Structure formats: C-alpha cells, structure tokens
C-alpha cells in the first residue's frame, strides 16, 4: 500500500472481505461520485438551455460587442471586457495589500496576535456579498465620488482609463469592492505558503547579517513565490465570479468603455441584473454567458489548485458569498 509511505496505517486501504464492508465502501463511493457526476450532468443541461443562443450566434457570441434586447442581438464582449477591467483593478490593489498582510501575519506579528488577527482578516470573507454591495452604495460611494475619483481624473484624466466625469457607480467602485473581497483569500493562502517556508531558510539569511526585511524578501518571498502566485490566481477566480456586490455598484451599462469612471457590466453582474426580466433568446444568451463563466472559472480554479493544492485548506471556508 502506498498509504504506508504517507505515514498512514496499513489498515487504511482495501476493505476486509466482510459483506458489510463492501456495501459500506461502495455506498460512500457512490455518494462521493454523485456530486461530480451531477455537476457534469447539469452542465449538459445548461448547454441545452443555452442551445437557442448558441445556434443563433455561434462563436460570434464571444466576440459580439452588442447586447440589445430590443433587437434580440446578444454578444459577450462588453462583459468580458468589463470583467477584465474590474478584476484588473481588484488585483492591482488587492495583491500588494494581501502580501503585506501575509508577511505581517507570518513574519512580524507577535505570536499571541497571529491567531486573532488571521481570524479577523478571514471574517472579511464571512460578510455576505450583498451587504458589501449595500455598504458600497451608501458608505463607499460618497467617498469615491467626493474625493478619490475627482483626484484621479485631475491627475490622470488625460489617459483613456480615467477620462470623463465621476458618477460613483462605475467600474472603479466595483474594482475597489472586489479588491476588499479578494483580500482574505489571497492573504490566507499566501500566509500559509510563507509559513511553510522552512526556518532554515530564514536562519541562513539572518546568519549572513540580513535584516528582517531582507530575510523576508530574499528567503521567504522567493521561496514562497509559487504559493503566492497561486493565491493570486485563486483571488482572480473569486473576482471573476463575484456577483452581487459588483451588480450593485457597477452601474449596468452594456457597452464597451475604456474609462474606469464610466459604468460597465461584468459577466456575472449581467446575469444577476437581467435575470428577472429575461425571456426566450435573452434568457438563453444569459445561460450561455454562464457557460462562458463556467469555463473561465474551471480553468482558473484547476490551475490554482495545481499551483497551491497543499494550501487549499487555508481558503476561508466562509467564502465571499460570491
């Protein structure tokens, strides 16, 4: 048995040949398979539901830049674009912050603070998404409209990214909210990756006379970089799929616009915002959009799992209420 090499018991493995054992073993196996089989079955059902949209638009769905229920023309490009922009903002703001948090929690914090602080950071993931949205509408938005966006458009207004007037319900606000929401995931997994760095690495750097900062940079961050990268990919997956908070703050404009200060729409927020009134072809197109999202999420998460499989348990189980 390979079980023995992994330090587990020889007795954990093939069942003894009692009837009850076989029955038990195969029944838990069936249940374990059930979920997986079901998910793939459901994907097929989604394809059936999306078939009228797939038939009508073909591959052009992904590149079509018009979403117009009045003319019954649906294309996904504006939303893929919106998703990329908001996710980009979230990562640019969220990743450095998360790495800072992870460094503090794994390298600097006094031992008695480590547990409680990690817990509090993870609590950020426990707040339901819809409450983030509500808070963003009434607490974050005034700050962004009042100070942040005018400032950005003053100094960066000449770039296409910050052109135009600030309205508060736009891609920038959605990106900020996303940044806050992905911090617990990236910080927890990165922290776990940094704590897995062997102390010998730190000791080697310290013995050469390195300061704490130099030790962290040379020994810890270098050693843990694949873990941190994987954590970032997990955060990316979270940002791409995040729905409610984005749907409430992005301003619902189904057009392509480079400016972050203009309203937009992501793939997920489009589904949430249009679900109530969608029918026939539009409903089918929304489900096809869901399929695109499914594929993206699958690729991102499989990749992240391959990168940080060992640290997967660190993902706050209370999720973002995505």
């Amino acid at each position: 048995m390979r079980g023995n090499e992994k330090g587990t018991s020889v007795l954990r493995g093939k069942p003894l040949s009692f009837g009850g054992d076989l029955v038990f073993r195969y029944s838990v196996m069936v249940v374990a398979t059930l979920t997986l089989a079901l998910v793939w079955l459901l994907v097929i059902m989604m394809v059936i539901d999306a078939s009228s949209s797939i038939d009508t638009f073909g591959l052009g769905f992904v590149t079509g830049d018009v979403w117009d229920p009045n003319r019954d023309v649906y294309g996904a490009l504006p939303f893929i674009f919106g998703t990329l922009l908001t996710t980009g903002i979230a990562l640019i703001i969220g990743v450095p912050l998360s790495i800072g948090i992870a460094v503090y929690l794994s390298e600097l914090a006094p031992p008695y603070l480590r547990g409680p602080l990690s817990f509090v950071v993870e609590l950020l993931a426990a707040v339901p998404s819809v409450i983030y949205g509500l808070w963003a509408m009434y607490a974050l938005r005034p700050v962004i409209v009042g100070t942040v966006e005018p400032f950005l458009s003053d100094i960066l207004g000449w770039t296409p990214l910050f052109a135009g007037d600030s309205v508060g319900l736009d891609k920038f606000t959605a990106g900020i909210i996303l940044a806050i929401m992905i911090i617990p995931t990236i910080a927890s997994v990165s922290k776990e990756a940094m704590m897995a760095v062997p102390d010998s690495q730190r000791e080697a750097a310290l013995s050469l006379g390195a300061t704490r900062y130099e030790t962290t940079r040379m020994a810890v961050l270098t050693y843990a970089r694949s873990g941190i990268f994987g954590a970032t990919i997990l955060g990316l997956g979270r940002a791409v799929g995040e729905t409610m908070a984005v749907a409430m703050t992005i301003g619902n404009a189904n057009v392509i616009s480079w400016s972050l200060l203009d309203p937009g729409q992501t793939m997920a927020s489009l589904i949430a915002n249009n679900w109530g009134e969608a029918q026939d072809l539009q409903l089918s197109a929304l489900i096809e959009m869901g399929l695109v999202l499914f594929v993206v999420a699958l690729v991102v998460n499989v990749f992240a799992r391959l990168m940080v499989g060992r640290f997967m348990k660190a993902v706050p189980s209370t999720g973002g209420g995505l």
Partner: protein
Amino acid sequence: MNIYERRRIKNTLASGLALACVVLALIPLVYILAEVVIKGAPALSWEFLTSRTVGTGEPGEGIGNAIVGTLLLVFYAGLIGLPVGILTGIYVSEYGNNRFGTTVRFFNDVLANFPSIVVGLLAYALVVAYLDVGFSLIAGAFALAIIMIPIVANTTEEALRMVPNSLREGALALGVPRWRTVLKVMLTNARSGIVTGSLLSIARIAGETAPLLLTAFYSSYWSFSPTEPVASLPLTIFRNYNSPSDVLLEQAWGASLVLILIVLSLNIGVRILMRPRKRKHKAVKRRWMTRLSRKT
C-alpha cells in the same frame, strides 16, 4: 548616512508598511459592521421581525417571511448537503488513497471555489427548467446544497485524518468490521471537526444571494411550500437596496443586521466553542502526566 543606517531604516519602513496593510484591510470590516448596526438597529422591532414584506413602503412592513425563508432554505439545503458532504468526506479519507479518491478530492477543491452564480445556473437548469418545478424553495435549497457539499466534505476529511491511527487499529484489532469502525469510532472522534465544518458551511450559504436570485427568486408573502418561490434575507436586501422609499431602504439595513448577526455569530461561536475542547484535552493530558510522573 551609512549603509547600515539605510538598511535599518528600510527594515523599519517595511515592517510599518506590512502593519499598515493589516490596518487598512480591517478598516472596511469595522466600517461595514458599524454602518450595518447604526443603520439597521433603528429598524428592528418585534413587528419588523414578525410581519411580511409587502413592498409598498407603508409602515408596518417587516422581514418575518424573509427570516423564515432563509431558515427553510438552510434547513432543506442541510438536509441534502450535510449527509452527502459527510459521506464524501468519509470516502475520501477512508477509501480515497487511490487515483479515484484523488480525483474526487481535486474536484471538491475546485468546486469549493466556484462562483456561486454558476452553481445557481446549474440548479436552475435542473430543477427550474428541466424538472419544470419553476422558481422554488427546493431549487434554491438544491443550489445551496451544491455550495455546501465541498466545504463539508473537505472539513470532514480533515477531521477524520486528525483521528489517531491507533484508535482505528485498536477497533480493527478487536474484530470490529471496517464500516462499524468508521461509523462508531472514527466519526465519534472526529465529531467536533465535522460540526465545525457544517456550521461554517451553514454560515456561508445563509448569506448567498446570487444562486437564490436564479432559483428561489423572491416572494413577498409567507410561503412554506417547497415548490413555491420563497423570500430570503439576502434577496430582501437586494430588492430594496436601491429603493427611493426610506421605509424599504431601512428594511434592507434591518435585514442586513439580522443576516450579519446570524453569519458572524456562527463564525465566532464556532471558534469559541471549539477552542475549550482543545484546552480541556491538554489539561487532561497534563493531569495524567503529573500523575504518572508522581508514580515513577
């Protein structure tokens, strides 16, 4: 300024920066909690918690049906999700030391981080569209169960792996069949871990909005039937967040307060409840060690 000085300053700056990151991340958490309490508390009253959402903005409305709806959704989801999740965890931990077990574990990890709106669409495709039940309590519960399963399975697996092998071997040496060993010995000893995982998964699904929007939809009436649309706290917030009516907006804040109280008390409660056990365990161990050392 010599190089040592510069390195020391750099070190101090970097430490300060890392601490600043932590503080910066905690600001939104504190701010959100404060805002929800300040704006939600005035809405709370017995009437508010027990009457239904009419949706017209007249005084005397409440979120009673949404609270009941959320409880029903969580109950039905748990009914499906907990057994499936725990059995999956048992399989992976006890029989999963092979390629198939690895595959199951892999997809559980992937599924655990899946966007919940996609899970909502999956449940929609089966229950709402294919089985033609329509927007309903059972469709919502089904979606929540799919979200729940990987969380419960992963924590169950983890908890079972923490059980010392000597216990398993002891039971097997006494001639207890494997399945009874798992059910009686292993599950009993992994109990607290499994309960933790289950409670955390309930905290997670209680706040889910997107999948419910696609499956359970919304109702402003008292509704208990599994095949009817049902109200829920997150959806009440989503419906009212943009409302021009102050009463309805206050309803959203009140619902947020109730929801956040449920979610946070589960999270914090689990953490507090599960801690003393460890300490007790250690205390018992220490007592035994002193006793033994006295004898020798």
